[in-house]
């Protein structure tokens, strides 16, 4: 649907370099990265608000680089929503219809539909400055959706909302994607949100793409240290691959993995929630090749789960277990614990410089 082909752009003190991206029809595509990584700039490049210096931007295989913003049939919803302060909610939503050849009747019909779906009926006559964050967002979405855009671009759609509205807004975006069959590109720095919403994505760091693909793949098989840390991979240890097994540097431990990569040296990572506690009443995974006995050295509560550190010889494992274990299984520092993780949860990746 949208393809970025080797796009580069240099600002003073910042550069976007050789970006290749393909966004497919009906994708919910996430551009993920820390603040200042250049992900919002990519959104503005796709929208046509910022010109790029080299490369190609294709839309349905046609070059879109020279198309003016207002002709692209893309819609962008900004993080701060950018509602027109002098117009009522209704007039904000109807703003664009005249430029898309939508008749007045049709426009009002769509307005009706959208206000029903988004629950905006009661606030149609209000001015934006009287709205809550969640309401503002829904108005901004309605203003974009009424035009039936080919692609919806979202700039950090959830970060300006209070935590109370967070869950609701997330569900709304998911619903829009599913019900309207829309292609969505979202910028986010929160991997939890991305996991919930997107099906594909790209991790961006310092103006370059680190990794792109299915969200599950990014999450489970990060191919660089940066991506691994960013998606919450823990238990990252330097490793050496010997005869199909992983040997941790500075330890005798040999670890089984299901996918043996074609490298000699790299890093091993295991997601903390993939490390299970072998104990009466807790998980008993069928196949637990990798078993370690150790001592619990730290238990820290993280809301619905607890972060537990287990020391086994010279190795330190970090696991995330349900909070209930504290009560039901008397997890506490100083206790012995046997932990295990399946070969599928052992991920090997190379250390890349960025």
């Amino acid at each position, binding site marked *: 649907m949208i393809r970025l082909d080797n796009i580069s752009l240099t600002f003073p003190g910042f550069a976007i370099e050789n970006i290749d991206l393909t966004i497919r029809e009906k994708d919910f595509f996430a551009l993920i990265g820390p603040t200042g990584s250049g992900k919002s700039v990519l959104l*503005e490049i796709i*929208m046509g*608000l910022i010109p790029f210096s080299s490369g190609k931007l294709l839309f349905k295989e046609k070059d879109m680089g020279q198309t*003016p*913003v*207002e*002709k*692209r049939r*893309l*819609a*962008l919803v*900004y993080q*701060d929503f*950018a509602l*027109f*302060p*002098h117009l009522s909610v209704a007039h904000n939503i109807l*703003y*664009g219809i*005249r*430029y*898309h050849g939508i008749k007045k009747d049709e426009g009002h019909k769509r307005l009706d539909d959208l206000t029903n779906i988004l629950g905006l009926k009661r606030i149609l006559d209000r001015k934006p*400055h009287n709205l809550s964050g969640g309401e503002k967002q829904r108005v901004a979405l309605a*203003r*974009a959706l009424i*035009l039936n855009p080919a692609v919806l671009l979202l700039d950090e759609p959830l970060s300006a909302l209070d935590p109370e509205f967070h869950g609701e807004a997330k569900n709304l975006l998911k619903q829009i994607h599913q019900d309207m069959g829309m292609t969505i590109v979202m910028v986010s720095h929160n991997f939890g949100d991305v996991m919930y919403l997107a099906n594909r994505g790209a991790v961006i760091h310092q103006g370059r793409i680190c990794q792109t693909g299915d969200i599950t793949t990014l999450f489970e098989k990060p191919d660089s240290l940066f991506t691994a840390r960013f998606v919450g991979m823990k238990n990252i240890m330097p490793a050496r691959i010997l005869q199909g097994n992983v040997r941790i540097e500075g330890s005798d431990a040999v670890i089984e993995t299901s996918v043996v990569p074609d490298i000699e040296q790299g890093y091993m990572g295991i997601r903390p929630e993939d490390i299970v506690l072998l104990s009466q009443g807790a998980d008993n995974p069928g196949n637990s090749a990798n078993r370690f006995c150790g001592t619990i050295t730290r238990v820290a509560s993280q809301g619905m789960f607890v972060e537990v550190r287990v020391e086994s010889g010279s190795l330190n494992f970090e696991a995330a277990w349900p909070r209930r274990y504290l009560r039901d299984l008397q997890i506490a520092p100083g206790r012995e614990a046997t932990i295990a993780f399946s070969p599928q949860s052992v991920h090997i990746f190379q250390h890349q410089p960025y």
Partner: protein
Amino acid sequence: MVFSLPVILLLTVPLIKMTTGPSLAMLWETLGDKDVLLAIARSLGLSLTAGLLAFAFGTPLSYLLARKDFPGKKIIEGIIDLPVMIPHPVVGIAILSLAGRTHAFGRFLSGMGIEIMGTRTGIVTVLIFVGIPFYVNTVKAGFESVPVRLEYASRTLGAGTFETFRRVTLPLTWRHMVLGIIMCTARAISEFGAVVIVAYHPMTAPVMIYERFTAYGLKYSQPVAVWLILLSLALFIVLRMMSRSAVQYHR
């Protein structure tokens, strides 16, 4: 608080004293003086002309300065602020030196039938010179207070640049423009030093006040001064009210 009192007193006591000085009868009598009325009307008319010309020529410049970055922008901004710093009679002399017939430009002007010395054209030119910084800076601040993202949002919704200006930028900044016109006009009304060089006649109100002061003394200049000050104060109050409503959208 107590330390601030001298400043407040300095700014208010003389004005109050002066406006309450002349008797009502004298003020009324002054209004009957056709020359006074004419001078005040002329001051207001020429100043408003300067304000409107500032609007016509200053608006594009303000937008440029608020929205674009270009080499030499700092210098242009400096030039805009310059008139505040130029001694007032010098402004008059500089404008007059434009029109000298010894120069090509001067000859060109008089060839066009444009006279500066002692004409309304000359006065308006001088008034624009002293008033334009007030217009440009006010309207520039107005444009700057409209987030670029609002204009971008409009364009993503299909509106071209002109439509975006008409439906988003203008509704959010016309108050600043009115404000700028009033400020420029008020500044122009108050000008004396530059005007008196370019044109003693046709006589503006400040020149008349000066003339009456030198010819007949303080007492006879006061009534005219009071009427002029009431006009300025009226403009000033409109201005303060406007400027509150101009910022209301930008909380």
